[in-house]
């Protein structure tokens, strides 16, 4: 067991797989000697050299497209984009090529590739470097969408992402890179579609992803003081999604709040909400509440940005209304 930051956990997982399998390699903007935009690949260039830790030009389309071609022909690329916002630049290669190639050719090609996408607000980086675009990605058949909230989850899910024979988008919240936690380096990869209950409770189920897991946990402490015990459900992967565990939790609590950092309109929180309304309605005794960001671009000013993102008190307020 090691105490690692989330960034170190992701790096350790990639390093482990690269030591085991010579076909695994990393590519992206400044991932080499520079160590990556946020330092995630720091030191990997020194161990694996320029062939397997490849600096690319600032060309998001060909970063993803090159990974598609490489994955189709016997290697396992891990591509890093600096920010999820830049996925718009390479969207054709992710949406029309990576996600659909296997299907369109009748299953005769598989694409074992990972695209790492740092995301999220809170870095005072304004509207083009702060978004949470997971709903776009989860919408596309052919992609798997992974969103860890803890170092241990990030480690086990990255091991699985690299082993997976399908295109996996791996979402990394920038403000979680420094969060520390115990990581069992001998642990097995974490299966996709297995949620983790981050806190048990009997009164309300709170689904939370990424950094919102921590806001939800803080909210749960506050709610506990009011006699409300919240269960915090972290799906860990948005697709595949662990419906069974969620429905079991709702069966117990009969109440659902969904907290994500996306702006609310068209969010994945909306998809979860619809899923529960369609398939688990009889177990609800209150309307579902979504706690999401404001429907605006991510603002720059600290005052505005802090308001934009959901926080523990937003969650407490939402939950309190239910009782």
């Amino acid at each position: 067991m090691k105490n690692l930051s989330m960034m170190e956990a992701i790096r350790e997982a990639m390093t482990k797989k690269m030591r085991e399998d010579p076909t695994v390699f990393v590519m992206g903007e400044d991932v080499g000697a520079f160590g990556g935009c946020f330092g995630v690949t720091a030191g990997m260039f020194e161990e694996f050299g320029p062939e397997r830790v490849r600096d690319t030009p600032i060309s998001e389309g060909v970063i993803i497209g090159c990974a598609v071609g490489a994955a189709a022909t016997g290697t396992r690329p891990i591509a890093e984009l600096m920010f999820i916002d830049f996925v718009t630049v390479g969207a054709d290669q992710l949406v029309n090529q990576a996600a659909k190639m296997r299907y369109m050719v009748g299953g005769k090609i598989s694409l074992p590739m990972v695209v790492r996408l740092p995301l999220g607000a809170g870095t005072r980086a304004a509207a083009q470097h702060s978004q949470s675009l997971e709903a776009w990605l989860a919408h596309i058949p052919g992609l798997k969408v992974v969103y860890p909230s803890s170092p241990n989850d990030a480690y086990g899910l990255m091991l699985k992402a690299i082993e997976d024979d399908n295109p996996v988008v791996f979402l990394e919240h920038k403000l979680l890179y420094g969060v520390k936690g115990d990581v069992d380096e001998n642990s097995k990869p974490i299966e996709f579609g297995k949620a983790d209950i981050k806190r048990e409770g009997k009164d309300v189920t709170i689904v939370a992803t990424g950094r919102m897991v921590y806001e939800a946990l803080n909210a749960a402490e506050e709610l506990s003081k009011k006699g409300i015990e919240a269960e915090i459900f972290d799906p860990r992967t948005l697709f595949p999604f662990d419906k069974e565990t969620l429905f079991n939790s709702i069966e117990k609590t009969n109440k659902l709040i969904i907290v994500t950092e996306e702006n609310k309109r068209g969010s994945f929180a909306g998809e979860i909400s619809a899923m529960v309304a369609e398939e688990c309605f009889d177990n609800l005794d209150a309307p579902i509440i979504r706690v999401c960001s404001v429907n605006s671009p991510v603002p720059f000013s600290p005052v505005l940005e802090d308001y934009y993102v959901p926080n523990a008190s937003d969650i407490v307020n939402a939950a309190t209304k239910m009782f």
Partner: protein
Amino acid sequence: MLELNNAKIIEMYKTMKKIREFENNASKLFAEGQIHGFVHLYIGEEAVATGVCANLREDDYITSTHRGHGHIIAKGGDVKYMMAELYGRQTGYCKGKGGSMHIADATRGILGANGIVGAGQNIATGAGLSAKLRGTDQVCACFFGDGSTNQGTFHESLNLASIWRLPVVFVCENNLYGISMHQSRHQAIQDIADRAVAYNIPGVVVDGNDVFAVYEAASEAIERARNGQGPSLIECKTYRHHGHFEGDPAKYKPAEEVAEWMSKDPLPRLINYMIDNSILNKEELNEIDSQINDEIKEAIKFAEESPWPPIESVVEDIYTDIVEEVKK
């Protein structure tokens, strides 16, 4: 000119003729309503795919385009499974899930036709990188049209391939039109090969209706790529005889231009060369043509007699492991 033995020349003729016959039949079947969707035909451009692929090994790769039938046949694709795919049948290359624009055969290094203009250029760099990382001497030939050279993918891919010295041969089929837009209107240069200068790689212009000229240029570029000397750009000047897709009357093409290019049709040119040089006689030619005719007829019969894909298959092959619910 490179030394080519008669057997190789006849082999190339067979490929070109097979493409022409496949496409003529596809055109007819589309007009009759037997096949659906978008069908973009390669008639007139056969010498390009043939001259390039005649230099490739079975384990080499190609990336193709929406106008992909010719590339797939030239790389060894089976017309039976191609035709069944055009018909949307279970026995098609893609089990009826891809259609004309997505035919692939990984066992022959065919990484897929592609419905997005220019997308294959990006994918080709990946195949080249993979060959390099795995330490093989495989090469990827990347086919694309003049229209796609205005996409960002063209710049991104040639730049990446040149800085990483990837074994990719970029083959531009300049058929003079990006859909309806004449090249003179969609870019301010005449020779796309000039753009190679920007990537410090070789760029050559060849007569794309002369299979020997294509063969020779491709041979040199493929050898360079195989030897680790990096990518090249070959621009093949050619012409598509049909519209952009079947159903496009191509009114934007002036009659004189069409007449001029029809006189440069790559197939009669090769036939005349073979007859004039006694590579084969008329009877032998007829025999080959009739065999190809039969092969295409059998392919159509195979397609027509093949079953439709079962409804359950709509959710298969999205992932290697997850199968979604069939219900809507």
